[in-house]
């Protein structure tokens, strides 16, 4: 039985909890959240013990899963690594590059299993596209476009709206795409970005990022917390012998449309992409198996560092109006 402790019991904590509960060889031994009320409600819902303190949690678990807001990742990750625990940490790795460095150094020093949870790599559409591009399906890649977003995310304490805590749409949202691009196309030479992040608009954030890759490809990433039309992602990878594209708004496996009041009132449409295994499960299962077998997780702490470094360079570009070389 692998004993897991979850820190941070918001949306992502619950998502991870559901994934672990589907693993017969994993037990979520305790959970922790600095909001005592939220921790109690979570514990009741899932019949799991609330740890009295971080040390209590560390004492009773082999694997620590960090699902707190970004700005608190390092605060929990560092003591967990120090205590020799295997740590899976939500993306982005940390809010600042300094915190990322601390985490990288701690992992290196203690040589503990660590994985930044870039779950996008376990979404079948992105995973399939990655492998196709790697296998040369589109030839040499010339241009890549990716889009992610919807309306502004709401969370307890509204931390997404606090740039100091979340890093805005670049660090919080399109880090998914930046990681996928680094994973799939390799290193970035230069980044240039525009963003609404610093305009002091309430609950609106938007960015357009251009990337020049070392292999000569040009990338474009759009991130939006400005689109009331619902959460949508898309991407296309154009190469000298073909193109791959995906658009969540066009490829919809299941869609239900219902009237709000069962009668003639305004309706709601909810698209779905049902699958036997969800990406969060696959991601966490991979990490648990690495912990159990001693394998190295396929997403390394350096990958987490590089994604944050690229995102922060894009933020710097948006702030200064300059192109940032990496």
């Amino acid at each position, binding site marked *: 039985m692998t004993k897991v402790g979850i820190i941070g019991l918001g949306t992502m904590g619950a998502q991870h909890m559901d994934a672990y509960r589907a693993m017969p060889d994993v037990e979520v031994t305790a959970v922790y959240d600095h909001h005592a009320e939220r921790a109690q409600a979570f514990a009741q819902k899932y019949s799991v013990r609330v740890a009295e303190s971080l040390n209590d949690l560390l004492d009773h678990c082999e694997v620590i899963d960090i699902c707190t807001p970004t700005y608190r990742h390092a605060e929990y990750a560092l003591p967990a690594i120090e205590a020799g625990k295997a740590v899976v940490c939500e993306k982005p790795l940390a809010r600042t590059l300094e915190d990322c460095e601390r985490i990288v150094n701690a992992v290196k020093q203690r040589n503990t299993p660590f994985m930044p949870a870039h779950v996008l790599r376990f979404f079948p559409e992105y995973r399939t596209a990655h492998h196709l591009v790697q296998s040369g399906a589109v030839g040499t890649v010339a241009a890549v476009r990716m889009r992610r977003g919807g309306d502004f995310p709401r969370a307890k304490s509204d931390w997404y709206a606090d740039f100091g805590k979340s890093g805005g749409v670049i660090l919080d949202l399109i880090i998914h795409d930046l990681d996928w691009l680094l994973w799939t196309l390799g290193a970035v030479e230069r980044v240039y970005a525009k963003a609404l992040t610093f305009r002091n608009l309430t609950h609106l954030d*938007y960015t357009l990022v251009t990337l020049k890759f070392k292999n000569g490809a040009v990338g474009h990433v759009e991130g939006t917390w400005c689109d009331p039309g619902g959460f949508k992602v898309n991407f296309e990878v*154009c190469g*000298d012998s073909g*193109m791959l594209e995906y658009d969540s708004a066009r490829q919809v496996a299941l869609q239900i449309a219902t009237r709000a009041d069962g009668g003639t009132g305004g309706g709601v449409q909810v698209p779905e992409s049902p699958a036997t295994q969800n990406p969060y499960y696959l991601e966490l299962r991979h990490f648990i198996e690495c912990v159990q077998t001693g394998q190295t997780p396929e997403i390394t702490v350096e990958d987490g560092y590089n994604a944050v470094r690229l995102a922060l360079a894009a933020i710097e570009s948006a702030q200064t109006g300059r192109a940032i070389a990496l």
Partner: protein
Amino acid sequence: MKVKVGIMSFAHLHADSYAHCLKANPNAELVGIADHDSARAQAKAREFETQAFDSYESLLASDIQAVIICSENARHAPLVQMAAASGKHILCEKPLMTKLDDGKAMLAAAQGAGVQLFTAFPCRFSPAFQQMMRLIHAGAIGELLALRGTNRGSNPGGWFNDPELAGGGAMMDHTVHVADLMRRLTGHEIVEVYAETGNNMFHGAFDDTAMLTMTLQNGVFATLDSSWSRPKTFPTWGDVTLAAIGTRGVVEMDMFAQYLVYYDDRAGRVKQLFWGDHIDYLMVDEFLRVVAGAERQALATGEDGYRAAAVAIAGYESVKRREPVPVQA
């Protein structure tokens, strides 16, 4: 009274479309064609049942009132100046110029001769774009904050891959349409450009991939993908898209998303067969009416053409300097 028009050069493939528009328009008479490639002039004259002139001079010496110029980009300037000197009104293919000095000379020539110079920006005539403009001007998305555009296509080959004649590659070819739509939509100039280009599609001495970031006078920022990145098997020639992001919502336009999907077994291809309005026809029709004395509405002026081409020119400067650069007025 029909407006008598001549076409100067069929180097740009859009000349064929404009010739069809003239033939189909009851208010137009295609008087003749001249081309530095005299064999092409004769072939096109046969195809469009009109006269082939043996030189630009002889075409301009005829009783035509107007010309449509579809030469290679870098040859627009001398042809515009010749036509202006002959007192003909001009519709010039985009991009208006490949060098700022050429553009200035063209604007001055038209002004000096008292002729009207227009730039072929048919996208302005798209009903989808015009509706987008109405929506935004009516405040449907609140205050405009950002724009995201694409004008992707495939490599036309030939002189388009000769930077001397084309003035560049994909960025020179495909920046101006959407840059013009952005100016038209907002009423503001593009004042700064950052661009990245690449050549991983065709590995030639020209850019086939281009991504521009633009800042408008009013602070709105925008990107534009003007790459020749559509694969050979793509179901149509390319796209023109424009998304506007505002404080209250988003408008997204996909200009040519009015099509049937055609699974053509005989060709072994899937195709998009467009059924929307013919924007080249609408543009040529307004040109004819303006030449006949009507007031200009959506037709792009020479100045509009200059401003849009200056964005692409600034893009190349930015690529060289690896930093954002101001757009020269």
